[in-house]
């Protein structure tokens, strides 16, 4: 028995093609990913009674548009979650809660992103005056999404723990070791620590190879009750526990804990609710929108102490293929491409089912998925056992 009131299983995962070029229709991308997930589960659109998606704005079709497209007869719960969520995993977390509570039986979540929506480089025409929280940020050039914040976090962590950039580089190098084994990934060439250290600054000390890679693509996940899952065509992947976290003083810039934010309380609650501990984890899928996010999650999740992730990772073999804790086995957003957390969940499911071909982690039975960062964290522990 898991800690949820109704046991919930992940029964379907789907992807569109992931691409670096062109401007494919986001409705088509979403439809392909959702159709794949339904087919993977052996379900039809008419089985879906809840939809949650994560979006920045108009770059992806909303929950109701997708319900119409797939022929859902009626939605019992739905929402388009705006960016204040544990990234795209927020959709799946909401889906699990909807099923666990009994409000819904079979729920779809997805994230669709396009390069046009995901590209933050270059000069944007900005407003001449800024109000709200932005009045304390934009006049100082703290602009460009969260790039400057990530640079501030990266430098502070290095200063606080006496670490160097190599620690971050190990995450970037690891992503390519895994993506070289993943035909779906958009960046598959291996890189070295020197490549990382030579990559250009985005906002010093944040480098290009610290940042994930914007793509066109969509990713979808279907959850239902564990009971129903037993009658479907895939090995059910059970949600053992889940948690959100924000930390206190919730904010990207002015939070009490600028370095870890909500990751620490999220991880504490996750393990408190789980039947497992960090030592039971066979494979970890941890958000890597920026390399610092991954390091900080590794520490918050308790795989090592605070400030110790660099030493813990060492030369990288521990988290690479054949290592003791394979990390981001699809290449993550750094290399497979940015799908805002949903792809970490799907990869964990595929690993637990044993469907990852060349990159399969042998005997993977328990996985952790952590998504989002700082004031917007979420995580799940998944297993094939119940």
């Amino acid at each position, binding site marked *: 028995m898991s800690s949820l009131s109704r046991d919930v299983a992940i029964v379907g995962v789907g992807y569109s093609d992931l691409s670096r070029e062109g401007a494919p229709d986001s409705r088509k991308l979403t439809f392909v990913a959702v159709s794949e997930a339904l087919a993977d589960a052996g379900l039809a659109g008419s089985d879906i009674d809840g939809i949650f998606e994560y979006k920045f704005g108009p770059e992806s079709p909303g929950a109701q548009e997708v319900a119409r497209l797939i022929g859902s007869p009626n939605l019992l719960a739905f929402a388009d979650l705006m960016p204040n969520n544990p990234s795209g995993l927020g959709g799946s977390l909401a889906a699990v809660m909807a099923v666990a509570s009994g409000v819904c039986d079979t729920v779809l979540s997805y994230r669709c992103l396009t390069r046009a929506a995901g590209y933050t480089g270059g000069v944007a025409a900005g407003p001449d*005056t800024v109000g709200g929280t932005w*009045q304390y940020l934009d*006049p100082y*050039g703290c602009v460009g999404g969260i790039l400057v914040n990530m*640079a*501030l976090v990266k430098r*502070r962590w290095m200063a606080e723990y006496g670490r160097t950039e190599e620690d971050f580089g190990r995450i970037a190098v690891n992503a390519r070791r895994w993506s070289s084994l993943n035909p779906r990934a958009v960046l598959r060439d291996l890189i070295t620590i020197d490549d990382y250290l030579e990559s250009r600054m985005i906002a010093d000390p944040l480098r290009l190879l610290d940042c994930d890679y914007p793509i066109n693509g969509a990713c979808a996940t279907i959850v239902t009750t564990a009971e129903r899952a037993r009658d479907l065509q895939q090995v059910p992947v059970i949600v053992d526990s889940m948690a959100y976290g924000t930390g206190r003083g919730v904010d990207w810039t002015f939070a009490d804990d600028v370095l870890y934010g909500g990751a620490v309380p999220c991880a504490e609650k996750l393990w408190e609710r789980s039947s497992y501990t960090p030592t039971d984890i066979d494979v970890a899928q941890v958000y890597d929108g920026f390399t610092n996010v991954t390091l900080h999650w590794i520490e918050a999740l308790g795989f090592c102490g605070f400030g110790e992730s660099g030493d813990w990772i060492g030369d990288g073999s521990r988290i690479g293929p054949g290592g003791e804790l394979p990390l981001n086995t699809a290449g993550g957003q750094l290399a497979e491409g940015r799908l805002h957390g949903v792809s970490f969940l799907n990869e964990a499911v595929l690993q637990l089912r044993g469907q990852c071909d060349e990159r399969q982690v042998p005997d993977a039975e328990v996985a952790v998925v952590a998504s989002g960062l700082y004031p917007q964290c979420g995580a799940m522990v998944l297993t094939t056992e119940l």
Partner: protein
Amino acid sequence: MTTTRETTTIDPRPLPEPDAVSAFFWEGARQQRLMVQRCEACRSMQYPPDVACIRCQSTQLEPTQVSGRGTLYSYAVVDRAYHAGFVDAVPYTVALVELVEQSGLRMITNIVDAEPEQLRVGMDLDVVFERRRGMVLPQFRPVGAAT
């Protein structure tokens, strides 16, 4: 603390838009005073200003002048413009400064009158006030830096 930096009248960087909550802060800057809110109930200070104390939820918040001294919590050097107003401003340094009055009381600012290679996390800073098209913004510089 009484130094005013002058920038050109056509400085295109964005300006803050004071509102009912923040007016005292920007008015203080105009008078070369660095202001934060102090909670009358729990005595904690907060920045940015808000409608209630985020520690105890009291709405009795008093504008309070602080010393203008702080330490460099972290910084980033931005050498490309992510906003049209900063095309001529690059490279510039964005910093998170912790004020000496209270642990965790931090502001976003720029570091002025210093080259990036002179900066160290933890170094002592002083506020300096920068005039920008009819507004005045608090900025920080290393203690002892020349204008």
